[in-house]
């Protein structure tokens, strides 16, 4: 079996009980979890900790999920975001995906589904980082070739 590399996950939801249990579960699963209870708190965490995937509730008082998503994508474009919605309207979720979210989940979500989406989101971020790294290498080589 492959050794699992923990994903660095940030859970953002104003439902404190949900955040608590969900993070325990993800930690038990082997992920490295940070938590935040508002959009602002989430941005603070992102400022200080490296995060791969943000799991973000759409409906929060104050700065809502979509606003938070915009800020995250503006400041940390390669951080992947999975939206959580308790709301039936998938429209907001779709809007979120147009703004760059990786995917969305309906609450209460099936843990298997969460695992798969989380894994895929992390993979996409890794691949993106890898492409950026390679591009940087090519840039470096070309520059040194120029000299």
């Amino acid at each position: 079996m492959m050794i699992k590399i923990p994903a660095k996950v940030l859970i953002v939801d104003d439902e404190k009980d949900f955040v608590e249990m969900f993070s325990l579960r993800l930690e038990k699963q082997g992920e490295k979890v940070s938590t935040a209870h508002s959009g602002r708190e989430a941005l603070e965490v992102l400022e200080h900790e490296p995060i791969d995937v943000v799991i973000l509730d759409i409906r929060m008082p104050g700065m809502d999920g979509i606003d938070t998503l915009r800020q995250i994508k503006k400041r940390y474009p390669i951080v992947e975001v999975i939206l959580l919605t308790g709301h039936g309207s998938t429209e907001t979720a779709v809007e979120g995906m147009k703004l760059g979210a990786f995917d969305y989940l309906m609450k209460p979500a099936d843990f298997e589904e969460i695992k798969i989406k989380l894994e895929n989101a992390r993979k996409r971020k890794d691949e993106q980082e890898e492409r950026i790294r390679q591009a940087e290498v090519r840039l470096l080589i070309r520059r040194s070739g120029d000299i």
Partner: protein
Amino acid sequence: MNNRNDHKANLLLVDDEDGFRTTIAKRLGKRGFVPMQAVSGESCLDVMARNPVDVVVLDVKMPGMSGMDTLKAIKQSYQKVQVILLTGNVAVSDGIQGIKFGAFDYLTKPVEIDHLVNKINQAFEMTRLEEEKQKELVYRARLEKKMVDTERLVSLGTLSTGIAHEINNPLAIINESAGFMQQVINSPEMSGFAQKEALLMGIGKIEKSVKRARRITHQLLGHVKKQDTQFSEVHLAALLSETLGLLKKELEDKQITIDWKIDKAKNKLWSDPYQIRQVLMNLLNNAVHAVKKNGAITLTTCETDDAVTLEIKDNGIGIAKENLGRIFDPFFTTKTFDEGTGLGLFVVHKILSGLNGQIKVESTLGEGSAFMIKLPKNGR
């Protein structure tokens, strides 16, 4: 006023004096009325029990059952019948008394025949008006019930989606808590724990119940009016094929015949394809559930200048008469909880109201059901 009127209204003449009665009957006959006749209060009621009567001309002074008692008896059993009293000329108070008991009017003997004919015509007119009023009332009551039904469903819809939404958050907490406990119990350090299986079974039941509740909340929320409903050209036949494709397995399992009576090139309308697909899905799903093995579902459309009507008809179990009025209510179902949530038709009704459509149902228990949905072609 037209005396030789052609109304088939039924007139009954009641008087114990044969001479008077037959004379009046003859004279009335000349003016187009052919009255039935009765010689006493008792025989009057007897005639009325066997024949439809609209207007009674009733003598007050009769041996046996008096005119006044006869009037009371008539008004008690036949509220719609109009009674004209004939009183002696010294007994005006009888006439007034009679009106108090519900008589249409009174005339004093000796009777002026034109005067009587006039009164009879007025009485007939009154029965006609009363009947119209009655019809109007019934119609109004029906209309009001329909409006109340629709409003009730709409407000129930708003309420239930609100509740569903609020319930999802605690459900998610329950779900994660149970899931976490399961992880802990399944971890290696718990392997020696004696009650492990019992705990896992309990957690399994929590998770199963969360899934069940989730199915309900998600279905309730699934039809929440999208903020920006996307209208586009909808090909009803194409949508039907697509939806049937999703039900392929069920159709094959039951070997159901689909009988297309639809011109596939026609039946285009301007509407929201996603919501219509949801409607078709729910209705076809119900039809599939309703039929037995080798059952048949017939799809028929009918197109007018401004609307398309689709009929989805099955030869399945049908709907009991007493349930027909409740099938669009949320959570009304005759199925067990894992077969249906009782929200399918409720959602259908809600979507169609939102799309300015209509739905009608005809069903016979044991023979099948037909759902007719009508949608405007231009979305309005």
